[in-house]
């Protein structure tokens, strides 16, 4: 076979990646210095240590990629790093605002969140490295399809388990063990994406079979409806029992899109869309918390000091940022509740303006685009579905939360990937990046061709 003995040294773009990472880091340092200057805090020693640690962590990831996934996409890592750095910067910014406010009110200084987030970043880097090293070939994941599916479901229902489950702000999506709390939904997101990819790869032919034609569009046989109904029911269950609108939306959207990609049947989109509309309508009428969200979205000023408060403050923040923003450290980002988690985009929009937010959205766009490009480039179906699924989780999550904060769609609580304060989300998203890097390394590796399980079998057949 021709391609097995072409030892061309194709450029692997690792140096590009390194330079981009350094660029992202420099941007972060500049932002931290700007905040220090604008708020009169200056650059404290802990801040210098923090930026140094961030730099070391980023370089460490680069080194691991260079050694273990040398043909990986060179854009994924720097963009994710830049987003994380921007998140850390903004969390620091909001810490400063909170401590200045406490100072004015003669209150004790609040615990800064930036160091906790830095610690989580270090954990994320550890998991990133572990994923790169342990998952030496993404196709190995396919073997554990149902294990991942089970783990994913367990993770989803974990917050409902009495002792460890924890309700925060009305949503039961936390698990607290030994004083550490995390959102298992974030892990479930990855586990279920792997499960969907593995499951759909094997079942896609039967799912693509068309039996009944309604209005010229072929619909699947009733017995093939099973999986989509299960996904739908799980989403509804999450919504009903955990009050987590965002996660519910994310899972269902992810599953429908992956089903469509696997089967190439538009009927799945129509079915999924119908089920979504049914579920959403029923949820609107059945659950007060859903109704409140929709009503706030429709008219945030209906109750601006109570239920609409968060969204109204978010819109004020964005409006005050205008085209170019107030400048880092010069706005009032802490006026928006949850400014460093759900509403971090409002805080960024205030200080960096429309310009900054557009840049931010384009960063996400680039990240997702690189993921999808990886999906198109990789040769095995499982890899394709996995890469597209992971990219979709990112994209949908970004859309659902940023759309919510900016009142494009009703607000549902989700974290903003890489930016928001919160360990589970940061770690999970870094694992996604690790998986994408792993798949892209396979996709872009020019010289070695390792046949996948399916294709190896095909070859055997051919040889016989």
């Amino acid at each position, binding site marked *: 076979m021709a391609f097995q003995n072409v030892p061309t040294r194709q450029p692997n773009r690792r140096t590009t990646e390194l330079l981009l990472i350094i660029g992202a880091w420099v941007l972060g340092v500049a932002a931290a210095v700007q905040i220090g200057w604008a708020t009169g805090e200056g650059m404290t020693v802990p801040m210098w240590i923090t930026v140094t640690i961030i730099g070391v962590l980023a370089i460490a990831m680069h080194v691991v990629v260079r050694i273990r996934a040398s043909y990986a996409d060179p854009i994924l890592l720097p963009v994710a790093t830049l987003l994380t750095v921007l998140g850390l910067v903004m969390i620091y910014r909001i810490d400063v605002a909170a401590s200045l406010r406490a100072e004015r009110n003669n209150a004790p200084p609040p615990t800064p969140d930036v160091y906790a987030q830095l610690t989580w970043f270090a954990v994320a880097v550890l998991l990133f490295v572990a994923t790169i090293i342990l998952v030496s070939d993404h196709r190995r994941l396919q073997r554990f399809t149902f294990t991942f599916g089970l783990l994913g479901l367990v993770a989803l229902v974990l917050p409902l388990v009495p002792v460890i489950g924890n309700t925060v702000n009305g949503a039961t999506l936390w698990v607290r063990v030994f004083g550490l709390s995390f959102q298992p939904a974030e892990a479930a997101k990855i586990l279920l994406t792997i499960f969907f990819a593995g499951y759909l790869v094997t079942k896609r032919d039967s799912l693509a079979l068309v039996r009944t034609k309604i209005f010229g569009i072929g619909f699947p046989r009733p017995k093939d409806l099973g999986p989509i109904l299960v996904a739908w029911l799980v989403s509804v269950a999450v919504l009903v029992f955990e009050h987590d609108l965002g996660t519910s939306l994310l899972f269902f959207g992810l599953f429908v899109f992956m089903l469509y990609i696997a089967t190439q049947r538009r009927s799945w989109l129509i079915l999924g869309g119908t089920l979504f509309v049914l579920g959403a309508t029923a949820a609107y009428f059945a659950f007060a918390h859903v109704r409140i969200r929709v009503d706030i979205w429709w008219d945030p000023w209906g109750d601006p000091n109570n239920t609409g408060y968060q969204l109204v403050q978010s819109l004020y923040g964005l409006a005050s940022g205008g085209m170019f923003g107030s400048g880092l450290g010069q*706005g009032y980002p802490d006026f928006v509740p949850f400014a460093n988690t759900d509403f971090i985009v409002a805080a960024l929009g205030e200080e960096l303006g429309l310009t900054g937010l*557009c840049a931010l*959205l384009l960063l996400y766009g680039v990240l997702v685009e690189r993921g999808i490009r990886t999906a198109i480039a990789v040769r095995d179906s499982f890899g394709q*579905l996995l890469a*597209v699924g992971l990219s*979709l989780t990112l994209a949908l999550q970004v859309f659902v939360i940023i759309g919510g904060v900016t009142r494009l769609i009703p607000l549902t609580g989700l974290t903003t990937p890489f930016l928001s304060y919160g360990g589970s989300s940061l770690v999970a998203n870094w694992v996604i990046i690790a998986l994408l890097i792993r798949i892209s390394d396979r996709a872009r590796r020019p010289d070695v061709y390792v046949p996948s399980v399916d294709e190896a079998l095909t070859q055997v057949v051919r040889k016989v």
Partner: protein
Amino acid sequence: MNRPIRRVSAVLALLLLALIANITIIQVFRAPDYRDRPGNQRQLLAQYDRERGPILVAADPAARSIETGDTLRYKRVYSNGPLYAPVTGFYSLVYGATGLERTENRILNGSSDLLFVDRTKQLFAGRQIQGGAVSTTINDRAQQAAFRGLGAKTGAVVAIEPSTGRILASVQSPSFDPNLLSSHNPAEIRAYYEKLSADPKKPLLNRPLVGLNPPGSTFKLVVTAAALASGEYTAETLLPGPKTYTLPNSTKELNNWTGKACSASGMISLKDALAISCNTAFAWLGNQLGAEALRNQSELMGFNTSFQIPLRAARSTFPEDPDAPQTALSSIGQFEVRATALQMAMVAAAIGNKGVTMNPYLVQEIRGPDLSILQTTLPSVFKQAMTPAHAASETDMMVNVVNNGTGSNARIPGVAVAGKTGTAQTGNERPSIAWFVAFAPANNPQVAVAVMIEEAGTSEISGNGLAAPIAKRVIEAVLLDSKTNLR
């Protein structure tokens, strides 16, 4: 699978575009609306976070900002609140701003383009942006004299420098204390504001600039100017001045305030008619001249124009299309003739300034944070209202009013004061309004003043009795001041 992947990525691209379009709408198109919403504290805090420039009367700040050390870093304080309230206005957390605080906001908060250089300098020096200063045209002595003169009476005083249009005094009574509206305590602000709003004497009304009242006999100055302009009348022309004037096409009669004929013969010269404020003669004269001529003359002196000084003054009005009896009533400043104190001061100033009406203004200079002058307001002509000869003639008639007529209380030894009294009915049962307008020295006026007092007595004497002494004090204050300055 590549085709559906591409399709899905196209959908994702659309979602991205939707997000970008949406934030563009919010941050660019809806932003001005959101910024001004009452619940948005940001604009306000940003404004309170920088040192707002002072409003100066001569060299002293009537309004300035002091550092507080609380969340709202600066607080607005007014050194003599009620005295300057109609000029400075207030700067309130709850009720926004009024007066110069509002109209000159961009200067005072430092966001005006005039302050661009200063802003840039402060930016590079790493200092907080500081607002510019606004120097007013107010003459402190005149302001104080008018304020003390009004005392507990309800009314307004405006003094103008006739040659320039500079507003030397703008006083109202009752006034309010802007300090209490500009505090950082919303509850206190609300309580005070509600108390002021509920006051039937309306202390929040900027009486000198927007208090509209019938000008009564002071409007005879406009009629006289129109008569002179017609070329058919001089100061000596004899007019019929009977005991009563029967309104044309009507059985209604108009009386003189004395209840008698204006002279034994029943005929009276224009000069004497003005001196004793003969209603029948002026009602007749107004109809001879016609409403059109009266309106033209009044408009040359500023009626039917809304002046921004830069505070917006109310538009003083001469009725649109009065019939003959209405014209007769308008000629004595009744019917639908309405004037502000500012307007009547402008009438006097125009006569004193050789017939030239100047545009009134309240802001002398815009200054940078270091008080360097960035912009000076130059006097500008509004209209040539009279020929200089007619103006001189009318001036003589007005001096005669003070020396030999109804305006005796405005006499100042050694100074020729030109004046005119007025008393206006505001309704059958309501108390009348006393007016006095004047300028001095007659041949080279330094000041023109209009005093308006509400709820005065019903007699023509009240213009002389209540208003003239205040006008006199203001004139004395300005003349004394200019003498001191010469020395």
